[in-house]
């Protein structure tokens, strides 16, 4: 027996391709290391845990970049359980960058709230691992496990503020409804498995194609239920109800994290399963109507409900629902342009949304989050840079040039029009006109001089890392709007590289 034989990592058995999961393995390793480090770290030193976790994320990001070049020819690994392709790696990159940005604003926020416990970092890494597994999932079982992994971590994180009833309520709601959604998801998977005899996506696709023109009712019911489960994770209407409550109750740094990464990862699974596994015209015609409806419902409900809110966290929660609706356009429309349009949209949404939530996070003071409209008034006169950055994020979310959000909407709507789905594009354009109202209202508030008799709010000073995150996201928002092809080319290549055959 050679030395290599003892080390299965270096000489794995055939079919096991450790490199295919390198980023996830690194992150999971970081998760374990953090759990152990937490035991020996003094409470005052917990800032170092943030450093360690950022290092782990950076390592995983490096691995992702390396894999990107390695995965020029897409393939499945682990006997078809995972897809090793640029599509998944693109999503990985978004998740990892978002995670790193969130980790950078975290310690300051947790310290102010007296919540600085070490397991926070481990849980974030655990959730991120689950999301990356979801992005690369090549089998229904892996999708389920990945969703559970990320969900359990997020349930705990939502309730991380143990003394705050709102946070407890958020965790409880998320847990119960999430469990409910998992039920739908699993039931749908069972039906699909029962009909096709496979859990592996590529084999399911082949089985459907070989089915020869007939569609079984149970398969369709399974697809519908599977969609319900995933729609819950992207908080699409009418499965969105948990979103505003949880976003508002959870600690803001957690909201920042999950508002972006969960959605990005779940969209990856949605696109992989629906656009590319269930893309067979016969089936597509039947599930299309559901997704079509959900897309429009999300755009309408998200934007309309945001009009009547007075808490910025809830506004951003509803705005996230609406943004999910726009990205769903890219799922309904099956053309490649729609897919890379959605990928571009996900990247631009991640940058702007992290920035917007980061503003609330870094400005929060010891007692409260200061996310009410009243507390935003006149922010620009006391924190000019923060207000300017916030304005940029809102412009991007509203879809104004020259920010990333303009091109994101442009690509998705153009893809819809190109695929002769004009009504969908019109719904999108109409509802984004509505959205301008509440995005600009926030901007207007920030740039309105407060009356002398108004109470003054005690915004915290921005720390170096917090300011860095705002600067990075602001720069990203602008760069993606000016050097469009920089990210666009990567998104196109991610779309081209998606695994289609086992």
């Amino acid at each position: 027996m050679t030395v290599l034989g003892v080390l299965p990592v270096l000489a794995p058995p055939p079919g096991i391709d450790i490199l295919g999961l390198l980023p996830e393995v690194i992150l999971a390793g970081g998760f374990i290391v953090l759990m152990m480090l937490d035991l020996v770290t003094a409470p005052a030193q917990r800032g170092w845990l943030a450093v360690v976790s950022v290092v782990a994320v950076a390592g995983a990001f490096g691995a992702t970049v390396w894999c990107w070049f390695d995965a020029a020819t897409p393939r499945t690994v682990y006997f078809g359980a995972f897809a090793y392709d640029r599509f998944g790696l693109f999503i990985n990159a978004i998740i990892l960058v978002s995670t790193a940005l969130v980790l950078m604003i975290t310690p300051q926020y947790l310290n102010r709230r007296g919540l600085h416990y070490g397991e926070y970092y481990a849980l974030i890494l655990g959730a991120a691992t689950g999301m990356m597994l979801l992005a690369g999932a090549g089998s229904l079982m892996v999708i389920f496990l990945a969703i559970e992994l990320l969900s359990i971590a997020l349930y705990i994180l939502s309730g991380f503020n143990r003394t705050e009833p709102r946070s407890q309520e958020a965790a409880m709601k998320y847990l119960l409804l999430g469990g409910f959604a998992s039920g739908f998801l699993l039931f749908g998977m069972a039906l699909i498995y029962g009909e096709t005899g496979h859990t592996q996506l590529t084999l399911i696709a082949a089985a459907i194609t070989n089915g020869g023109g007939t569609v079984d009712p149970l398969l369709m019911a399974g697809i519908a239920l599977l969609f319900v489960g995933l729609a819950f994770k992207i908080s699409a209407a009418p499965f969105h109800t948990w979103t505003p409550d949880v976003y508002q109750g959870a600690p803001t740094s957690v909201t920042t994290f999950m508002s972006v990464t969960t959605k990005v990862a779940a969209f990856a699974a949605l696109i992989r399963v629906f656009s590319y596994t269930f893309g067979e015209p016969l089936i597509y015609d039947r599930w299309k109507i559901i997704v079509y409806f959900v897309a429009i419902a999300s755009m309408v409900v998200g934007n309309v409900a945001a009009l009547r809110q007075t808490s910025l966290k809830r506004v951003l929660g509803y705005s996230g629902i609406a943004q999910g609706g726009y990205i769903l356009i890219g799922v309904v429309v099956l053309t490649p342009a729609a897919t890379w349009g959605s990928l571009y949209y996900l990247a631009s949404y991640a940058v702007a949304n992290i920035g917007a939530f980061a503003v609330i996070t870094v400005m929060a003071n010891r007692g409260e989050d200061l996310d009410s409209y009243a507390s935003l008034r006149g922010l620009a006169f006391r924190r000019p840079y923060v207000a300017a950055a916030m304005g940029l994020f809102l412009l991007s979310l509203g879809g104004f040039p020259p920010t990333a959000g303009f091109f994101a909407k442009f690509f998705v709507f153009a893809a819809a029009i190109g695929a002769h789905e004009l009504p969908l594009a019109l719904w999108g354009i109409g509802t984004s006109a509505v959205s301008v109202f509440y995005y600009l209202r926030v901007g207007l508030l920030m740039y309105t001089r407060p009356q002398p008799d108004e109470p003054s709010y005690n915004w915290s000073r921005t720390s170096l890392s917090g300011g860095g995150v705002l600067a990075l996201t602001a720069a990203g928002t602008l760069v993606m709007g000016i050097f469009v092809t920089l990210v666009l080319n990567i998104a196109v290549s991610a779309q081209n590289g998606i695994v289609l055959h086992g």
Partner: protein
Amino acid sequence: MTTSTVAVLSGLILLLPLAGALLNALVGWRLSRRVVNAIGTGSILAAFLVACVMLAQVVGAPDGAKSASAHLWQWLDLGTGGLRVGVDVTLDPLSAVMLMVITGVGLLIHVYSVGYMEHDRGIARFFSYMNLFIFSMLVLVLAADLLILIIGWALVALSSYLLIGFWYERPSAVVAARKAFITQVAGDVALVIAAFLIVVHIGTLSMPGIFAAAPSFASGGLLITVVCSLLAIGAFAKSAQFPLHTWLPDAMEGPTPVSALIHAATMVTAGVYLIARFHPLFDRAPVAQGMVACVGIGTAVMAGVIALSQVDIKRVIAYSTMSQIGLMIFAVGIGAYSAGMFHLATHAVFKALLFMAAGNVIHALHDEQDIRLMGGLSTNLRRTELCFLSGTFALAGIPLFAGFFSKEGLLGFGLTNGPGAFPWVLYLVGVGINVLTGLYAFRLWATVFRGEPQTARVYAAREAPRVMLVPVAILALLSAFLGLILGVWSLVIHDNFLIGVFARFLSPVFTTPASGPLAVDLSTGTAILAGIVGTLGSLLGAGLAARIWLQRNPDPSAVTARLPRALPQLAYNKFYFDEIYDALLVRPLVALARAARRVVEPRFMNSGVQTVSDACSELGAWVRDYQTGLIRDYASYMIAAAGVFVVATLVLVSR
């Protein structure tokens, strides 16, 4: 001149002013005045040095390779058949000339601003806007894609708006800024429509692509005429030509360095540049060309007459600018592109000089701008007067000053190359403009500097500080000797004395048969005769002015007083254009808006727009009502929706 050199140099020249603008905008308020000044002028100095290198690159390039385009990055790419917009730049003799004008004159004006704005609190904001303007202007002249050019075009309008309204506490400045911006937007719209027509017909917005495809337009056809007319309207709005000229005099509300930079040297000449740049299209649209030429010369006459009647020192210069740009527009309208560009360059020098010297006067008199209250300033402002005089000589086209070469060259073309059956008609009008120019140029000098002081304030006037004098002096030397040097150089290389070197430098750009110096030889007897007659016109105007106004108590309205009353009244009120536009456009629009508020809005909008907005709001409240916060409600929505979805798919299956 390789592509990568062009890419690096243009990247540098664009980034430097942009970095200066951003730096002053973001952190300027916490920096000391000295650092802000250094950033503001330093970035332009660096850009000027880069521009010199770029000019050297063009000069040093072998014949036939004087033009190079570089692709900086792809901005938009919608796949095959879709629109592709690249951030491309072109360096050729034409853009090199513009670069030198923008950064060279721009640098001197920035230095001058350090002194002029010394006591202004918003200095960081000022320099940030000025740098932004230089950046926008550079984008405009370097762009090799029509969409990028339009972006620069619009950014220029934006920075002009910001600078005219720089003193935003003054209501008049805010109104003037708004007027300028709205007029410019009218031009922008024309330009954008032209771009639409071009992209529909040719399928690209890349300028080399457009010019290569120019033969696909039927010469003199309807489409090319419409496209060129729209481009010309865009140029008219930017260059303050009739009928879109009324914003320029009001724009004098901005600080004087702004007037010198934007409203004399650079921005207002962008229209001339645009037409010269798009000459392959204009050469195929004789009707549009004729229209351009007539509008140009008409504006020149009109503005010259108005200049003669105005009493505000900056407005006189503003109308003279309008008149001179009219001549340039006339030149590019008759295909004399090199001559028009030459006048653009010399005009930038002597007009910036006149504005800055006027700024010295205004500064010395503590913001007094009425020439009736000046006079006799030559004793206290000796150096400023010398510089001003150099500019006046150049403006009036006195032989051997810079303006003489470019203007006589330009008018010479008018005689030999003018549109229509009687080119000499337009030429005679041009000679008339020369007389007018001489009159108003020397009238200004005589009433401001000569004669007896009209107010006590003049005795207390003090010469401007060195930082404001040196830039003016440099420009004064240039306006005295630039033309002469180039003229002697032309003689050395046996070319046309007036515009030889310049035309030869630009000839790689204007190579089409109908354009440029290739078509006409200026050294013929007719041309020499034309030059002599034109010069005599200028001298006549200058002499008349000296006779009328060189006295102890000159009367600024001496000429106009002798004419029938209606005429001076018309001229003094700027031919009532503001009033006409007010009556034709503003009042009807305001009335319409009022009517809309009183009739349309309550009757129709409340049932339309208001309903939509109410409905959205109601719907929002309704959605919020469903947001009960109770888990059992949320779970039942999910079950209901899932049930509907499953049933829907099943029904569809059985279909």
